[in-house]
Structures are given as C-alpha cells and as structure tokens.
C-alpha cells in the first residue's frame, strides 16, 4: 500500500494502453463512465468538506456577530487573526501542540517500528498479537481517556499505588502541568503505537524476499541486514505512518478534552480544544475559525515539507 500510495500521489497518470485506433469512440464513452462513477464521491466530498473549509476561511476573515438565531457576517477584517496572534493562550496552544506532536509521533514511530519488526519475526501467534494490538487502536478515544484518567487518579489511581509502592512518593499525575502533559502522552502512545506497528507489519510483509536472501548469501549479519536492507526498504512505509500520525496528533481534541479538560490551567489545551472553546463556549466564531484555519495551514505546510524531504530521501536510496 504504502509505496504505491506515496508514488501514485504524483506519478501514474498513464492511461491504459489502447490496443488500436478504432477504440477512440469507446474511449470517449469510458471517460464519460469514469466521471459518472467518480462524481457521487467527488460531489459529496466537495459539498461536505471543501465548501465548509472555504466557509471557515471566510468566517475567520469576517466580523462575526452572534445573534439570537445563528450569527451575522459584517465586513472583511484581519482582526480575528491579529486577536489570536496577540493572545498568549494561542501562542501557548501552538507551542504545546507542536511539542506534543513531535514527541508522541517520534516515540510512537520508533516503538511501533520495533513492535512491527518483532511481530514479523513471530512464527506462531502472530494473528493473535495483531488482534490484541487492534484493540487499543480501534477503541473509542473518549473511553481510553476515561480509563487513563482513572489509572492516573490522584486518590485511588493504580499508577499512584505503584509509584508509592516502589518509593516514588504520591505524585498528582494530572495535577501539575508537566506530569499532566506526560500522562497525556502515555495515554496517546498506548493507543496509537499499535497503528504504527500494523502499518509497519504491512510494509514488511510486502518487501521482496530475494533481497534478504542475497544479503544472507553475501554474509551480512542480522544487524547489518537491518540497517542496510530492511530499514532503507521500509522508509516509504515509515514515512506514511509519520505523515498520518502528524495529522492526527496535530488535530488532537478528544484526549485532552476528556482526560484533562485542557488543564491544569491551560497546560494541555491543544489548538483544537482552544478553537472549540473559543467557538462554542465563548461564542467567538471569528477567532475560533482563525485558530482552526491557522492550525490547518500549519499542518499542511508541515506535511508538504515532510513529503518533499522524504521523497528526496526515497529516491536517493
């Protein structure tokens, strides 16, 4: 999947081979059918995603006043953006979201790759392990947030019992900013590392077996094989996993919303939580949309940069 996904993104415009000339009529017909086949999907996606995204940009650039029944737009303005750029909560949320994304994605990709490598080597019980890994990944985030909230509870949480049993005192995991951020990362890593592991297993399964045989014939040890053969071949897969994870982590909402409520204070308030609060609790639609649009633009730039760098690396290999 992974290789073709990355490469097909920009390459692969080749039309199917036309056996002979008399097909042009047939070709025109199949082109029309192609559009007929794909238009339901494209229309729905355009109506429900592209249109609201454009609308969101409009809202972020307008004077929005909330009225009794909805709200009114009055005039073009940059004030929403200047408002958020000057707000310390926005700057903190931005730094927090970037930091959180970088740390969790790094840990999850390293851990997930290791787990994927272990799973691929398993001769028996692999199916069972996959099924087990799929449970946290497919779990409702709200549920895992409640579970970790109970585990990290300051009075009857099991984590605190373990810490005090091994003489580490009685930390208030969700009570101080630093420990709340770490606790949230642990919950995220538990839930999402399996996703990376599954993608990595899928990538490993499709690697050409001959290369490994050749490496073995050449007398490469398992360490050398891993660094010189497996890892380079796995690069597109890992790139894809990183891309998906960056996107999900950057838009994170459910976990802080339920686990910490964005607190203590605003310590775990991500851009999405801040945007939600601004829109639906403070009813400041203009600023809320400006936050959402700024987050979207940043994550898009990040991903395009990442794709550019990674594609270059892939073609080097």
């Amino acid at each position, binding site marked *: *999947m992974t290789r*073709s996904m990355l490469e097909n*993104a920009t*390459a692969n*415009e080749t039309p199917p081979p036309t056996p002979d000339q008399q097909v042009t009529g047939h070709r025109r017909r*199949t082109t029309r*059918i192609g559009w007929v*086949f*794909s238009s*339901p*999907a494209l229309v*729905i*996606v355009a109506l*429900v*995603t592209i*249109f*609201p*995204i454009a609308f*969101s940009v409009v*809202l972020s650039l307008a004077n929005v006043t909330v009225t009794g029944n909805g709200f009114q737009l009055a005039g073009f303005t940059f004030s929403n953006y200047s408002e958020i750029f000057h707000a310390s909560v926005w700057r903190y949320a931005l730094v927090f979201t970037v930091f959180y994304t970088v740390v969790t994605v790094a840990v999850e990709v390293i851990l997930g790759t290791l*787990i994927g490598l*272990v799973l691929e*080597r*398993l001769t028996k*019980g692999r*199916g069972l*392990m*996959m*099924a*087990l890994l*799929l*449970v946290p990944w*497919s779990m*409702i985030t*709200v*549920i895992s947030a*409640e*579970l*970790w909230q109970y*585990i990290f509870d300051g009075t*009857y949480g099991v984590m605190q*019992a373990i810490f005090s049993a091994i003489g580490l005192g009685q930390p208030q995991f969700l009570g101080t900013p630093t420990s709340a951020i770490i606790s949230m990362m642990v919950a995220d890593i538990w839930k999402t590392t*399996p996703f990376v592991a*599954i*993608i990595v*297993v*899928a990538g490993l399964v499709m690697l050409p077996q001959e290369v490994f045989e050749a490496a073995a014939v050449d007398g490469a040890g398992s360490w050398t094989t891993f660094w010189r053969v497996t890892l380079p071949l796995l690069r597109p897969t890992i790139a894809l996993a990183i891309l998906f994870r960056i*996107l999900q982590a950057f*838009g994170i*909402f*459910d976990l802080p919303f339920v686990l910490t409520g964005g607190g203590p204070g605003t310590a775990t308030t991500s*851009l*999405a939580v801040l945007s*939600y609060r601004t829109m*639906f609790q403070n009813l400041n639609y203009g600023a809320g*949309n400006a936050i*959402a649009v700024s*987050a979207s633009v940043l994550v*898009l730039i990040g*991903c395009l940069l990442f794709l550019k760098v990674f594609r270059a690396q892939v073609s080097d290999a």
Partner: protein
Amino acid sequence: MKFQTHTGLKKWVNLLNTSVVLIVLFVALPLYWLIASSFKTNVGIGASPPQYFPDPLSIANYQSAFVHYDFGIYFRNSLIVAIAATFLVLAIGSLAGYALARLPIRGKTAIMVILLMISLFPEIAVVSPLYLVMHNLGWIDSYQVLIIPYTAFNLPFAIWIMRNYFLGIPREMEESARVDGASPLRTYWSIILPQALPGIFTAGIFTFTACWTEFLMALTFDNSNSFRTIPVGIALFGSPNVIPYGTIFAASVVAVVPIGILVFVFRRFVVSGLTSGAVKG
C-alpha cells in the same frame, strides 16, 4: 539436569520472547484494568490501595449503564450511524476508486492529491461552518447530520485504499470481459468487486472504526439524548464532580464488542488489504 534447564531457560528468555511478553503487557494491562474495574462495586472502584482483582465481583455497573443511563439508546444510534456511513462509503467509494484506478479520466493526479489534502484537514476547521449549514437545513439532532459528514470524511482514505487494491488486480480478465461486450458497470460488479474483497473489507473496517469513535462532530451536532452516540453519551455520564467510572467502564466493555468482533473476524484483511496494492506500486 540443572544444565539442561539452564539452556532451556536461556533459549526461552531470548530477545524475541522477552519483547513479545513486554508488548503484551504494555497493551493488555490497561485493558485488564478496564475490564476488571467494570466488575467492581462502587466501593471497589474507590478503594485505596486499589483492588487488583474485583472483590466482590459485581455486574451492577452493567445494569446501571443500561437502566440508569441510556446506554442502550447510544449503542443503537452508534450502530445506525456507523453502518449507514460505512455502507455509503463503500458503495460510492469503490466506484470512484475503480474509475480512478482504471478508467481514463483527465486530472486523476490532481483529484488524488486534492483527496489526500482533504483527508489531512483537522476536523475542527469544518465543525463550525458545517454546524451552520446543518442548522439551516434543520438537521441538528438527527442521524443524517452525522451520516453525511462521516461519509464525506472517510471517503478520501477509503478511495485511496480501494484504488490501490484495484491497481493490483491483473487487467487481463477485465480486457476479456470488455471484448465480450460487458459494460464497465458489469465488469466492475462481477469481475473487480469479487477480487477486491480484502481491500474493500479493509476500507470498511477503517471507516466503521472512524465512525464508531468520532467525538467532535457528534458532540457538536447532536445535543438531544435520543440521537447521542456512544462517545458523547459516555463522556456525559455522571456530573462534573462525580465520575461514575464503574458504569463508564461497563459501557466501554460493551462498546468494544462490535469492533472487536469485526476486527477479529477480518483481522487477516487488515494487513492483506493494505499490502496488495503494492504489487503494482
């Protein structure tokens, strides 16, 4: 004898087995805690030090979830929304995936790139404009207010998976079907679909899971209790000051069941459906 057990032990305690045990513990311990706590009484939930095994075992939480709280309603709503959206995504998305894989359309690359970009967008960016639209349509507090957005947001990724799977299917059978005069729809239905089942199952599992777990739109668009889905329902159990963990965990265990069954039955497809497109890649 002693020597033998020693080597036996050494053989068993190799790196691979150790890692497997660690992985299982890492994944399973929190799951154990979820299940065990769902069988604790209120006293057991609040016990300090914690009860490592529920004592006494109680199913009161399960009764409470369905009787005191409306978990039954939430469960039904989640099923309706997730099944409807998954069905729509697979029906519409597989046609589009086939067209984008095989039929000569201009601007395929542009379409695929735009689809990829859309699936990248943070959900928060569309929630408030969509809310306005849904509000004007009078759709707030309904099933379609979730089914339609879930369909749209899961289509891009599902089209990606299915298109890549279609690309891996050999062309010859389609060619001969065409020579025999079969229409593209007929070719798609009786030649492509049967061969693409693993890819379609994979797309289906990803879509169903995404719909089953979605929180932000469900929280924003459905405020009435009778349309709430499981994530929102569970998040709103209890009051801000008292969180009924026991009931939440009992409901959670029940909520894992449909996905658990789906994933267990189709676990082979989750990987094979993802890999097969690569044959052509």
